[in-house]
């Protein structure tokens, strides 16, 4: 990404005056080098100092050293690390040389810990590791992450592997993980947090309230192209929706991009799909309608309802928690 793109984004954010979380994501964001990345992030320094933006980054940690830690600390980055567990669970995270990245990831994590920078982990669980929830939980408590999010592997974007579809194994995985967490709840668990809060509301007699607003989650590419709803759409072209690009920050104002977003077909399909979820699925009060990227990659349309993500990461998770609480 070029500096004039981040400068343009910052200028547009100034105009909107809304609080925004900027997530540096996609590939490995730190691979552009410290000098370039810090320049890009400093485009937003006025906004950050005024409390209008907060930086977040999702990194594989392999490049994190003392200098990066100092930068994250000084600019209040929320740091997320992508790590799938111990070496046996992390075999698919490799460097450009094709060698396992595990050792380098752990060096980066040690640097974060030395600098007292809290970090969250996103762990992708594949079919082979569904029987090892206890081992995974113990591993993540040992490395000292502040929070943990579990993504059951999805066929999405560049990943063409099939999502696990063994309901029994997936429920058993979530049950084992929930049990391990309840016995030693020292990590914030993203997935238990959100599903338990929804189950709690559902257990009350108050009728569920359907939100009237949703986050369109704009993703901005290196060249300023903007897609909505899912970052995977930046690399996607479909017969039905075309390129998914709703504007470019060098050409269009944010307000125009958002306004245009209201009328593009894939957003309208998303809203319609959510309405269908609400009408057809009893788990709607848990997830509020599923993910656009998963709907498209599995069904070829966003006007769809259930996906493997719904089943594996929402429905079976809720089932597992309820079974564990009996």
């Amino acid at each position, binding site marked *: 990404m070029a500096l004039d793109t981040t400068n343009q984004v910052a200028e547009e954010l100034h105009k909107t005056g809304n609080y925004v979380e900027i997530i540096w994501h996609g590939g490995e964001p730190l691979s552009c080098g410290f000098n370039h990345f810090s320049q890009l992030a400093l485009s937003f320094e006025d906004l950050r100092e005024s409390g209008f933006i907060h930086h977040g980054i999702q990194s594989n940690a392999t490049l994190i050293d003392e200098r990066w830690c100092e930068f994250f600390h000084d600019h209040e980055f929320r740091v997320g690390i992508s790590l799938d567990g111990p070496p046996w669970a992390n075999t698919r995270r490799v460097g450009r040389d094709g060698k396992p990245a595990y050792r380098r990831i752990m060096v980066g994590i040690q640097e974060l810990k030395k600098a007292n920078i809290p970090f969250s982990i996103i762990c992708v669980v594949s079919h082979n590791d569904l029987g090892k929830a206890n081992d995974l939980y113990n591993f993540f408590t040992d490395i000292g992450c*502040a*929070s943990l999010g579990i993504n059951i592997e999805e066929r999405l974007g560049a990943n063409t592997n099939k999502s696990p579809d063994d309901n029994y194994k997936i429920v058993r995985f979530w049950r084992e993980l929930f049990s391990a967490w309840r016995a030693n709840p020292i990590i914030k668990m993203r997935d238990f947090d959100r599903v338990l809060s929804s189950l709690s509301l559902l257990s009350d007699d108050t009728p569920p309230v359907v939100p009237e607003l949703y986050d369109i989650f704009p993703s901005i590419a290196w060249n300023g192209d903007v897609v909505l709803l899912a970052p995977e759409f930046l690399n996607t072209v479909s017969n039905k929706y075309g390129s998914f690009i709703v504007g470019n920050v060098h050409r269009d104002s944010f307000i125009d991009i958002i306004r245009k977003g209201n009328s593009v077909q894939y957003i309208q399909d998303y809203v319609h799909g959510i309405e269908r979820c609400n009408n057809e699925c009893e*788990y709607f009060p848990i997830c509020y309608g599923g993910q656009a990227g998963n709907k498209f990659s599995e069904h070829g349309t966003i006007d769809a309802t259930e996906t493997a993500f719904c089943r594996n990461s929402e429905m079976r998770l809720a089932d597992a928690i309820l079974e564990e609480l009996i």
Partner: protein
Amino acid sequence: MQTLKEKTRKLKTRIKRAVRLVEKPMSEDGKDGTVDCPPQKTNSLNWNKGWGKYGKT
């Protein structure tokens, strides 16, 4: 066959207890309660909740 709603009603007390476990300050476990953990959204009206899979906090 119980509906999801019926199951949650039946387990209401245990669900609320588990929610308290989520909310319990880490300091109660001897950890530093002042650690600035990435905030976890617990508001059920938050449409962003699924974006966590992309790293959104």
